[in-house]
C-alpha cells in the first residue's frame, strides 16, 4: 500500500559566514579568487601555445588578475548598455566612462586569447571540457553558499547557440529553438546545480544502468 513521505517544510538559508553588502562582494562570493587564477593562468598559457614559433602579437603583455577583472566588468557593462558595435563603446561620449579603464585594442586582445581550460585535458575529454575547471568551481560555490528550501524543481535551461555542433538541441516552436541544453536544479530562482546535456552521452554506454550503480556527486561539507 502507499504511504506518502513525511515532509518538514523549512525555508532556504544562507551558508555564508557574513552577508555581503555591495554588489562586488556578492559577485566575489561566486566568482572567487581561485576562478580568477584559473582564468589568468590559462589565458597566458594559451597565448604562449599560439606563439611557439617565436612570432609575437604586437603590444601583448601577460594579463593580470586586475586586468581580467576590468575585462569581465566591461563585458557585463556592454551587455547592459546596448550599442550596435563593440567599437562604439570607445567612441568617446561621456557615458562610456568605464571604457577609460582599458583601451579598445587591449580589450580585443584579451578577447582573442581568453581561455578557461588548460591545454592538456584529462582523458577522455568531455565535450564541454573547454568550460570545465570553471563550471565545476562555479557549481561548487553555488552549493557552498546556499541551503535550498524544501521545495526545489528540476528543469532544463536552454543556452542559445546557432552554430554547428553535434551537442546542440533543436526544438522548433520553443522560445529558444536551438542551443545547448542544461539540466538544472533550482530553488525558486537560485540555481543550485547544473549538468550539461548531450545526446552523445546516452550513446556512451551509461544508458540503462541500474540505479544503484550510478556515480556519486562530490560530497559537500556542511557546517554543523
Amino acid at each position: 500500500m502507499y504511504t506518502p513521505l513525511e515532509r518538514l517544510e523549512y525555508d532556504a538559508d544562507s551558508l555564508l559566514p557574513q552577508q555581503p553588502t555591495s554588489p562586488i562582494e556578492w559577485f566575489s562570493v561566486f566568482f572567487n579568487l581561485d576562478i580568477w587564477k584559473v582564468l589568468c593562468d590559462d589565458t597566458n598559457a594559451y597565448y604562449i601555445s599560439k606563439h611557439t614559433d617565436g612570432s609575437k602579437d604586437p603590444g601583448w603583455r601577460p594579463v593580470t588578475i586586475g586586468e581580467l577583472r576590468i575585462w569581465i566588468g566591461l563585458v557585463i557593462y556592454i551587455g547592459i548598455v546596448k550599442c550596435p558595435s563593440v567599437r562604439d563603446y570607445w567612441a568617446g561620449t561621456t557615458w562610456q566612462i568605464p571604457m577609460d579603464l582599458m583601451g579598445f585594442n587591449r580589450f580585443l586582445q584579451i578577447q582573442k586569447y581568453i581561455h578557461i581550460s588548460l591545454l592538456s585535458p584529462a582523458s577522455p575529454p568531455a565535450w564541454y571540457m573547454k568550460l570545465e575547471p570553471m563550471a565545476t568551481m562555479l557549481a561548487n560555490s553555488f552549493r557552498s553558499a546556499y541551503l535550498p528550501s524544501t521545495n526545489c524543481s528540476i528543469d532544463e535551461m536552454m543556452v542559445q547557440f546557432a552554430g554547428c555542433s553535434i551537442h546542440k538541441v533543436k526544438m522548433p516552436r520553443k522560445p529558444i529553438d536551438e542551443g545547448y541544453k542544461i539540466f538544472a536544479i533550482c530553488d525558486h530562482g537560485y540555481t543550485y546545480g547544473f549538468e550539461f546535456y548531450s545526446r552523445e552521452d546516452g550513446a556512451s554506454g551509461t544508458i540503462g544502468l541500474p540505479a544503484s550503480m550510478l556515480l556519486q556527486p562530490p560530497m559537500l561539507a556542511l557546517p554543523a
Partner: protein
Amino acid sequence: MLPPPVLLPPMGTRSPPMLPLPMLPPPMLPPPILLPPVLLLPILPSMSQPMSLPISRYLTATSQTCLWLAKLLPYEKYQFSIYFDSFFSNTAFFATLRELGIGACGTARRLQVPVELQEYDDANGKAAECGDLALVPRDNVLCACWQDNAGVFMLTTIHDLNDGTVKNRKRPKKGNHAVSQVFGSSRRKLLTIPQMIDDFNSHIGGVDIADQLRSNYYTQLPTRRS
C-alpha cells in the same frame, strides 16, 4: 418667517442622487468539498511483492542525470521534495528518489502512468466530471489522473490520497461541456483541487525564474552577421 432658501446648484453640475449602497453579502468560502471517492484499482500481483526484495530499476539517461543533480542536495541531513515537468517523470525514477528520502512530484506523460489509469482516462475521458480523481499506487509512487479541462496525469511520493485545498480557479478559455457545468457563467470560482496540483503549480517555476534573472545579464558581445 420664511424658511431659509435652499440653494440648488445650476443645472448640469448637479450630482446624481446618492443611492444607498447595496448590502453585499460577506465573502464566504464554500465548505470544502471532499474530493470524489478515491478509486483504488487493484494492484497487479507481480507488483504487490514486499518492498524488502531487491528491486532493480533501470533508469533512462535523462533520469540518471536528474538523479545526479538530486544527489547534489544535502538530502541526508534535510528533507527535500523536487518538482518535475512531464519530460522527466517516470515511476522508476520517482521510486529511486523515494528510497534516498527525496520526495518527488510531477506531471507525467501518458505512457509513464500505469495502464489502468490510461484505460480509465480513455473510458471516462469525455464523460468525466470536472474534478474527478483516480489514483493507483505503483512501486510506492502514487499515480493520479485528475480531470481538469482535460485529463492530467500526475506522479507523486509526497501527497496523501485525500489531500485537497480550496483555490480560486480561472475558467479555462476553451472549456468543454463539463467545465461549463462546473463554472456556469462565472469567470472564477472557488474549487477544491488536489494538494499535489496546487503544490506543483506553486513550485514548478523555479528554473524559469532563474532563466529570467539570468536574461538580465547578456554577455554576448555585439557582432554583425555578414
